[in-house]
């Protein structure tokens, strides 16, 4: 035994010596260490030929040019397109992370039909033929049952071929219920309609202005065409221009502004009119513009001889700085100095529309602010507001209507945007849910088509919107992503993403020149998706009759090509068509109001005549029950439109905005102390329409009695990187219909906060 044991030991020692002299241990150690450095499951991105494709980003209405870097056929990076008239190489956080949408986990990869309960997430993948047939059959059934008006449609953007195709479909089909997402652009359009007599969108020559007063506009937080405004802001800094931010909360814009005027929320219009008071009282206004190119400044008489007070009388009778100070909380001397500086500047400019401008806002406020621009003549001149004609390149002949369509189109709109109440408004998406739930139109809504919008997330009083959706039997989503609305749909006909499709991109909001962009496929479609224009045409053709006849084009691309006409070639080549030498119409020709002048006061004002304009604009809730005011705030790092934050964006959400799944509500320390709340404490936030769990963040950037929540959180569908985090502020707010436009003018809601 001994021999065997010792021999065995000898064998082992010999083995060890041999092993040590062989490459085995050394090589193995080396290889194992390398193995741990590059795990086989760590992806190695394949290299290849680099190329760059120019296109246009359509994730927001900003219309930035993008250059997509590719490695062979993979898109690896989105960059701002150098030299582009909108963004000149800059890019925003959403645009820079757009590939996470293209390659993201929430793509709808093929047409799908719901098989489980609504919202349960059970789907079956179907073929495109089946999907088109399913939609066509359902819509045909509703139509032949004599209820074509019972089909509604929501689109994101208002202009361009795709929204126009939907509008055309609704007309040919016979429903008046075509709606588009509303934003400040709509309020500005009505303002320009009333004050300029033009069907125009505003262009801001912001970069050339030298004294900018922003009434709550998130100039560097996504307002207008975001990157363009960033560039303008940089230019102001370089050239020592002045930015004054009028806003109740210390937003990024307020922090970067040369002067932050912490106004009481909802009283911005009062401040604007009080500035007008000083400018008129002290004779600081542009006399030549006001005398020669403006109407209703002085008291005026209508055709029947009735006299009305002019803007001057209206302002001087009620908006003295002393009075305004009591409402706005802004020191009278500050109002005076602000007004003097504004009127004394060479190129003053007043901006309006809160935050990113996702809420249309009060028309009274828009007109008050625009009147300031009028007073100083900052209209259609360098550094001012230019009225740019709405894109008019879609010039298709009207579709032929059959009997059913004519009857349907006669019916009242569900959202209340027609008839006497709101004569200037095309559609009121925020009024839709109420219209459906109350049945005010006198007929039921049986089907809804949604394209480019995510109403279940973006519309206020989300519970009411959800209730409306639940009552609609058939919801079709054309979304590329499984967003909140798609998740509640019955049928999804997924669109290509913006990086896979060709589509016109009309007029970026706020750009002071007419521009048409063209987005183009940067990569081939990654999944079995289809350009929404083709899907819609497919449905129409399947239905046949006059609906089918309305779409004579062979394909969406043929339609686009025909629509663009001579511009097609340039758009194909450059991705953009710019009128570089564009100059605004001179004051003599610029106005098409009945007086052919800039209209300080219009008929629309009379809607508000009996209202108390010298006060905070009304929001929902009573102070007795809800002592606080909740205002939403926007951030570039939180996408608050139809598209949610990408994983990269979610990474950048600040530590005082979100902790794990809890959102922080910003509370002034004094307010918090009175409620016995401390930093980081969990609290229950209640408003008249909802309640939510939040955490308290003490902030000196907000006044007493006001609390603020970020927009863009609280997604429930979407990817795990953003869903389930925080609270959707739209769930806690309810829309307030503007008396003139009917659009949502809610700037906040009454609220209470208590320890949870």
């Amino acid at each position: 035994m001994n021999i065997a044991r010792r021999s065995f030991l000898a064998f082992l020692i010999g083995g060890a010596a041999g092993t040590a002299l062989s490459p085995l241990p050394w090589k193995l150690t080396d290889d194992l260490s390398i193995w741990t450095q590059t795990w086989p499951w760590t992806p190695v991105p394949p290299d290849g030929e680099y190329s760059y494709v120019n296109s246009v980003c359509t994730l927001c209405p900003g219309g930035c040019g993008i250059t997509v870097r590719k490695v062979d056929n993979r898109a690896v990076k989105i960059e701002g397109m150098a030299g582009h008239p909108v963004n000149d190489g800059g890019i925003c956080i959403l645009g820079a992370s757009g590939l996470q949408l293209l390659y993201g986990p929430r793509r709808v990869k093929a047409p799908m039909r719901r098989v489980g309960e609504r919202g349960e997430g059970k789907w079956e993948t179907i073929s495109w033929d089946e999907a088109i047939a399913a939609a066509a059959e359902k819509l045909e059934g509703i139509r032949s049952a004599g209820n074509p008006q019972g089909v509604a449609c929501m689109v994101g953007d208002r202009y361009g071929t795709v929204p126009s195709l939907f509008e055309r479909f609704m007309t040919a089909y016979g429903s008046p219920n075509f709606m588009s997402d509303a934003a400040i652009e709509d309020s500005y359009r009505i303002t320009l309609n009333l004050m300029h007599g033009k069907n125009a969108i505003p262009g801001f020559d912001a970069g050339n202005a030298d004294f900018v007063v922003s009434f709550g506009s998130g100039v560097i937080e996504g307002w207008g065409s975001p990157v363009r405004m960033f560039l303008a802001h940089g230019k102001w800094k370089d050239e020592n221009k002045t930015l004054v931010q009028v806003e109740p909360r210390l937003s990024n814009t307020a922090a970067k502004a040369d002067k932050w005027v912490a106004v009481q929320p909802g009283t911005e219009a009062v401040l604007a009119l009080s500035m007008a008071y000083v400018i008129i009282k002290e004779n600081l206004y542009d006399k030549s513009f006001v005398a020669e190119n403006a109407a209703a400044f002085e008291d005026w008489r209508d055709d029947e001889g009735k006299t009305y007070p002019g803007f001057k009388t209206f302002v001087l009778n009620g908006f003295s700085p002393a009075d305004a100070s009591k409402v706005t909380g802004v020191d009278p001397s500050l109002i005076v100095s602000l007004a003097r500086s504004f009127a004394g500047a060479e190129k003053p400019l007043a901006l309006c529309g809160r935050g990113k401008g996702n809420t249309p806002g009060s028309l009274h406020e828009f007109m008050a602010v625009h009147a300031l621009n009028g007073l100083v003549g900052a209209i259609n001149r360098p550094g001012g507001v230019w009225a740019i004609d709405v894109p008019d390149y879609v010039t298709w002949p009207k579709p032929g209507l059959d009997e059913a369509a004519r009857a349907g189109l006669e019916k009242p709109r569900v959202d209340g945007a027609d008839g006497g109440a709101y004569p200037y408004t095309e559609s009121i998406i925020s009024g839709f849910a109420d219209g459906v739930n109350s049945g005010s139109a006198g007929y039921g809504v049986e089907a809804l088509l949604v394209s480019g919008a995510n109403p279940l997330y973006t519309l206020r009083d989300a519970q009411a919107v959800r209730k409306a959706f639940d009552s609609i039997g058939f919801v079709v989503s054309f979304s590329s992503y499984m967003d909140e609305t798609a998740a509640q749909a019955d049928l999804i006909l997924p669109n290509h993403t913006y990086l896979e499709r060709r589509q016109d991109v009309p007029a970026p909001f706020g750009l002071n020149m007419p521009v048409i962009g063209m987005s183009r496929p940067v990569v081939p479609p990654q999944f079995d998706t289809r350009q929404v224009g083709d899907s819609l045409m497919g449905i129409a053709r399947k239905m046949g009759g006059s609906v089918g006849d309305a779409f004579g084009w062979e394909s969406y691309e043929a339609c686009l090509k025909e629509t663009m006409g001579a511009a097609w070639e340039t758009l194909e080549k450059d991705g953009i068509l710019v009128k570089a030498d564009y100059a605004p119409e001179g004051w003599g020709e610029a106005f098409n109001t009945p007086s052919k002048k800039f209209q300080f006061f219009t008929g629309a004002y009379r809607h508000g005549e009996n209202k108390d304009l010298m006060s905070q604009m009304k929001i929902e809730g009573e102070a007795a029950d809800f002592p606080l005011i909740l205002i939403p705030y926007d951030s570039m790092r939180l996408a608050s439109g139809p598209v949610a934050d990408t994983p990269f964006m979610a990474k950048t959400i600040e530590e005082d905005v979100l902790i794990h799944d809890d959102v922080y509500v910003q509370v002034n320390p004094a307010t918090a102390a009175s409620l016995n709340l401390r930093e980081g404490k969990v609290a229950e936030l209640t408003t008249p329409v909802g309640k939510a769990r939040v955490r308290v963040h003490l902030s000196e950037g907000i006044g007493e009695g006001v609390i603020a929540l970020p927009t863009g959180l609280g997604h429930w569908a979407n990817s795990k990187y953003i869903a389930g985090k925080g609270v959707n502020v739209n769930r806690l707010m309810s829309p307030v219909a503007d008396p003139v436009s009917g659009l949502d003018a809610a700037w906040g809601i009454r609220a209470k906060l208590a320890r949870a």
Partner: protein
Amino acid sequence: MKKAQEHTAPKKYGMVIDLDKCTGCGACMAACMAENNVPFREDETDKNLSITWLRVYKLTNGKKFPNADVCYLPRPCMHCEGHHGHSPCVSVCPATATDYSYDTGIVSQIYTRCFGCRYCMAACPYHVRYFNWWDPVWPEGMEKMLSPNVSVRTRGVVEKCSFCFHRYQIAMEKVRYEGRAELAEDEYQTACTQACPANAITFGDLNNHDHAVYKLKTHPDAFRLLERLGTNPKVYYISSREWVRRQGDNYLENEGKVVAKAH
């Protein structure tokens, strides 16, 4: 091999960030993440664990409403020169995983060399270094957007901003192809510089009189973070706000003016 290659003057790449222009929008962060294959996780709210090569900090002046003020401060790697390249992190790395190049002034990080001891993280006064506590996971399909120019990291290594050095490498390919000796200023720019929609970031060779950064770093409002620590960083900031400049080096309330810095 010929010995002719690249006998050019040493570069000292650096950055000047204008905090007056920075809007805190975060585009630089997203551009950086996309450029450098930075991983992401479901919950990124714990900022100590959240890998952001370029992090935009929010500074507050500590005053009461309505005198409160906020300033955003983007913080890439400072690429400290220290004394002759002995930056805090390079000095402590036992694995030669991080290094300072006299040729470019860039502090490199080689992930396959790093064994995760995290000395460098402790040594770095700017918190620019991040440890991969987990293997990165891309949702199915998203690995398609990974760039081949930057190595994908694994669990257990430290990573940080490289001043997009791979962009230098790519730019140099063209320079060599065209038979030129030098890189033009605009040929090598970091992803954040290129993306910044506010044009707040300027990048270039601090040694080169013709580069914009050369002049900008001598701006009267220019300062560097923790100047008095002697780390000799290559990222300069400009702010017209005194309180921001003071916070940049933790000045005490009753301390004098911000001291002049080495240019």
